[in-house]
């Protein structure tokens, strides 16, 4: 009886988050649509001009067919719906530069973006949590100042700059070309255990560069929350029960401070995915970032718009998953709804 009430609350919570997620995806799709059609001229004219520049031609009926397919002579909302329909059937359009379907051009890169983003997130959690706890418990110790200083770097240096500096120092002092996610021999090879290991080996630098800013922010949040919680009566109560000090801290205030910490995950993910675009351009990673950049410069709008849409959806899914995590962590949400 109690369990079903809990189950109800969990369900209603998830349903609410799902509805919000759907709205977010719709909003993103509209924004992506807007971006696709912002540049002057319509898609087909640009396509024809592009073809002409490459020495090819487009027949009048091919042009008319394209126009009909995308509904370019019809009102905006019809165009939007047509595009949504095309996407639902798996047709993301043509990438002009490559003369290939968008889906094919994007290929593995989306998964690479996921891999790098997840890597950065894991780095953030692994580092921010212990450091945050440590600096709250051992205030004004030497390590506290060291960590605070590193935190400032993460806070103040934009991630592209960090990537640039890493490349610079790597090149200047180690004569190494840092960048990319795979050794040349693995770059286009099919997936294998060895390729996966290669990926893991190359992961640290992009993950650290990408995660620094988020880590710095999370450390401050964890530290502030823990300092607040440490002073509360239930911590004294734990001490009064006879617990050793380290268990007093780890079992009680840390556990409570984890909640606001976890709730920031929902906003860390868009931040990291966002940042991965620029960092992967600087570090030449085989993710969606450099592709988007080139597409924008060439005004290859369907490619660009689709990438933006996919990044958005990716983020929403990730945020939804983190909401699940939050709900598991905090019994108050489960029980009070």
């Amino acid at each position, binding site marked *: 009886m109690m369990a079903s009430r809990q189950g109800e609350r969990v369900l209603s919570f998830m349903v609410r988050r799902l509805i919000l997620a759907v709205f977010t995806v719709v909003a993103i799709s509209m924004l992506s649509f807007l971006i696709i059609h912002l540049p002057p001229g319509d898609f087909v004219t640009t396509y024809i001009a592009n073809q002409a520049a490459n020495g090819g031609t487009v027949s009048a009926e091919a042009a008319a067919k394209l126009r009909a397919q995308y509904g370019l002579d019809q009102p905006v909302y019809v165009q939007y719906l047509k595009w949504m329909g095309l996407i639902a059937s798996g047709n993301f359009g043509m990438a002009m530069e490559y003369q290939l379907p968008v889906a094919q051009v994007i290929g593995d890169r989306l998964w690479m973006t996921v891999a790098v983003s997840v890597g950065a997130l894991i780095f953030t959690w692994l580092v921010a949590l212990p450091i945050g706890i440590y600096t709250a418990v051992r205030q004004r110790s030497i390590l506290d100042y060291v960590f605070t200083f590193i935190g400032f770097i993460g806070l103040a240096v934009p991630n592209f700059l960090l990537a640039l500096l890493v490349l610079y120092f790597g090149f200047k002092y180690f004569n190494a070309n840092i960048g990319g996610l795979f050794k040349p021999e693995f770059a286009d090879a099919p997936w294998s255990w060895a390729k996966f290991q290669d990926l893991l080996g190359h992961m640290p630098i992009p993950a650290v560069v990408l995660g620094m800013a988020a880590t710095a922010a999370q450390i401050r949040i964890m530290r502030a929350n823990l300092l607040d919680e440490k002073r509360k009566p239930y911590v*004294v109560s734990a001490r009064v029960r006879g617990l050793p000090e380290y268990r007093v801290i780890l079992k009680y205030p840390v556990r409570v401070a984890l909640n606001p910490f976890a709730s920031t995950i929902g906003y860390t993910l868009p931040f990291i995915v966002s940042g991965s675009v620029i960092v992967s351009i600087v570090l030449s990673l085989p993710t969606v970032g450099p592709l988007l950049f080139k597409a924008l410069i060439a005004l290859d709008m369907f490619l660009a718009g689709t990438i933006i849409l996919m990044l958005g959806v990716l983020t929403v899914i990730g945020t939804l998953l983190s909401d699940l995590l939050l709900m598991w962590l905090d019994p108050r949400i489960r029980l009070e709804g």
Partner: protein
Amino acid sequence: MDSPGVKTPLLSVRGLQTQFLADEGTVRAVDGVSFDVYPGQTLGVVGESGCGKSVTAHSILRIVEAPGRIVAGRILLRRDATELDLVALSPNGRVMRSIRTGVIGYVFQEPMSAFSPVHTIGNQICEAIQLHRRVNTREARERGIELLRRVGIPRAEHRMDEYAFQLSGGLRQRALIAMALSCDPQLLIADEPTTALDVTTQAQILELLADLQAQNGMAIMLITHNLGVVAEMADDVVVMYLGRVVEQGPVDELFYAPRHPYTQLLLKSIPSVHSTRRAKLPTIAGSVPHPYSRPAGCPFHPRCPSFMPGTCDVHDPRLLPVEGQQFASCFLYQPAPASAPVADGSVTSSLS
């Protein structure tokens, strides 16, 4: 072991001084406090907010937080013919930790915030049990359920798996008491156990405490500012003001013949059903001084109706017997010393 007629106290506090060092100055929260707690008896510690009652309790349990520290005094705990000075122990050491809840239990004032919001009550009670007794999880849980029943919580097996915010105020306080008693302590320190509760619940909780004391034979140190509670529960009373004990004695003597002017004023300020109509409620003039600006000499002298200039504002009175078991720290009952106060370290004789 005890000679007939002479009881050995379970806990003896001698000259305890606990201070807080802040930027603006040093707060002498506990300024030379001594008292005894006897097994099976209840000691009431009375005083206004800020007089140092809670800090005394925290000092006994060695949970005073920085920037506070115990600077002087001894806290002697007697168990099995051994005497342990709690001040000399390391606060996070094994011995002190085994005493907390194992020998001395503590009941908080605010039951809601004394429980972790993300752990079940059962989790916290069993944790206490398993810290001090060699039992497995199942036995600990059974003991926990039995404890909850003993303090009068219905459906104890279900309550074990609930969170603090799911219980009412009265039930929470009972659960807190259960947790404090989980390891059969010899002394229970109850810090304002009824202040956060409504009157009916207050009465129930006090009754519960009295019952448990009769069952276990444990001593209770009851900290409160409510004289009514003291009258009902305590055997002996200690009255504190600004970190010092100003009066001490058996409860009946204290209520019928208070010696120290502060105690007298406190008792007079209790509203009474028997007072005449439209009589003004007596109050104590002035207010408790700021902790950074303690008056010299007797701390109460600025508000005392029996203030004696030249004596009370210069010398420190000592807690001395007045009659029978009553002690008071007042120059009405002791001669003023002939020499200048020792406070500044120099002793010069003066013409009296």
